[in-house]
């Protein structure tokens, strides 16, 4: 689906907007199936040991044998990701508006934000547990921490790209600052914001997974760790597959929202 995002707008037809994605979906599925089958064949052919790369069918079997932790893990990680993503996106946009309005605040605080993003979250896992305990909130907090910054940067960029003449025109009609924001500035910033949201969809998932490494029982991150420390490569692949499913699905939803909302084209 990201392939479309980078095609030139001219190549994107306005009609048959429902058939196209469907076809693309079917094609991607077909490619995926082909790749998996090829992998299965090659692994059997060359006798690759399962502790390097297991056959895809083994991975599928592992998931089907005990579907419960995978389904529960998927749902739990999804919930954490969504919490982090939504709070991060809202905070990111809100703080961008604040920065946009108050240059002093922006110059004071923005560097602190930049520095904060250079800190590896995993390094203060213990602190996060200390502050938030073993709750959903702890994972959502890490997810939030990774999400808000790109949104702030892009929203700010978008807000500043507003045509000053349009702004002057609206002012001359007596538009209030709030109207200016909701009618002109935010819609103008939307394409930029969505570029960041697509990136943030992946980052929020990373945050949720890393958050689950700090002592939890349910979640895809937990399954990854268990697989790693028990040298259960099949288990790792099964967890990776679930992560891929979650990541792709979430990305697709954000991209679809982008197509629906930013119909005037999301050129970077």
């Amino acid at each position, binding site marked *: 689906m990201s392939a479309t995002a980078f095609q030139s707008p001219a190549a994107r037809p306005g009609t048959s907007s429902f058939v196209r994605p469907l076809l693309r979906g079917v094609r991607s599925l077909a490619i995926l199936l082909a790749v998996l089958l090829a992998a299965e064949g090659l692994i059997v052919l060359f006798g690759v040991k399962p502790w390097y790369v297991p056959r895809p069918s083994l991975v599928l079997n592992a998931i089907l044998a005990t579907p419960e932790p995978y389904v529960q893990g998927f749902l739990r990680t999804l919930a954490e990701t969504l919490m982090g993503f939504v709070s991060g996106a809202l905070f990111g946009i809100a703080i961008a508006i604040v920065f946009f309005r108050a240059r*002093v605040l922006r110059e004071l605080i923005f560097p602190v934000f930049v520095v904060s993003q250079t800190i590896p979250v995993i390094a203060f896992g213990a602190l996060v547990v200390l502050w938030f305990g073993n709750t959903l909130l702890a994972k959502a907090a890490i997810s939030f921490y990774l999400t808000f910054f790109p949104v702030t940067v892009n929203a700010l960029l978008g807000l500043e790209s507003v045509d000053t003449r349009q702004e002057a025109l609206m002012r001359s009609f007596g538009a209030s600052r709030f109207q200016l924001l909701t009618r002109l500035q935010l819609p103008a910033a939307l394409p930029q914001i969505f570029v960041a949201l697509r990136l943030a969809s992946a980052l929020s998932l990373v945050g949720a*997974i890393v958050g689950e490494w700090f002592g939890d029982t349910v979640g895809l991150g937990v399954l990854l760790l268990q697989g790693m420390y028990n*040298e259960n490569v099949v288990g790792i692949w099964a967890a990776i597959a679930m992560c891929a499913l979650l990541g792709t699905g979430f990305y697709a939803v954000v991209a679809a929202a982008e197509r629906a909302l930013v119909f005037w084209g999301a050129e970077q």
Partner: protein
Amino acid sequence: MNQTVAPARSGRFAAGFSRATLRGALGMVLLVALWEGLARGLALPAYTLPSVSAILSSIFEHRQSLLAAGAYTFAEALMGYAIGALVGVGLAVVITLVPVTRNAIVPVATSINSVPVVAWSPLILLWFGIGMPSKVVMVALAVSFTVFLSALAGLDRVDRRSVDLMRSFGAGRLAILFRLRLPTALPLIAAGLRVSTVRAIIVAIVTEMLGAYDGLGWVIYQAVLQVDFVRVWSAIFVASAASLAFFGLVGFAERRLVFWK
């Protein structure tokens, strides 16, 4: 306020730079003061939050070992970064030269990327061991996709009419690539490269914390086990400084190379 900004725009690097820098520095100073005040005022134990002064003096005391660990991590990040950048730009160029490959490369790259980078780390550690190679691979993995996407967007951005024009003069694909596409794409590629710097160092550290022989992540891991939280923070500070330096360096190179931006 607006009036002062307008004339300052011409001398952006002189006036604007210094004022923004001053305020930024002030913001950092305020943060440090707040931190120091909290840690000292509430007499927080080191395992909750050590004071900045304690961290800085610990950094000074252990400067040699921290520098060595930092250099190790930086080397991993740099190698992975270089490989990732080459792979990313290379794939985008291949797609531009041989358009048929787009349908194969883009879906595969997207599906690899749909798995969060950290999810690959257990597998990469099992495959490549806990030495340098696993970190280099992880960083390359993290960097290549970001660079690939921005390079592809940049290469695609070229005006179709310019391509047609060059073609009509008999220019081949390679000529169009070097004369037209790459120069047009450079600002976007550079932006992708700049964003990837911080990521490269963080991914190296995160992977080190799961298993390593050396590096900042290894220092953090060991320090946590020895309940030495001042050392944990020291390593975090050094990592942060390394990221900022890397970011600044690439940004500087970008301004030099992409002067027409």
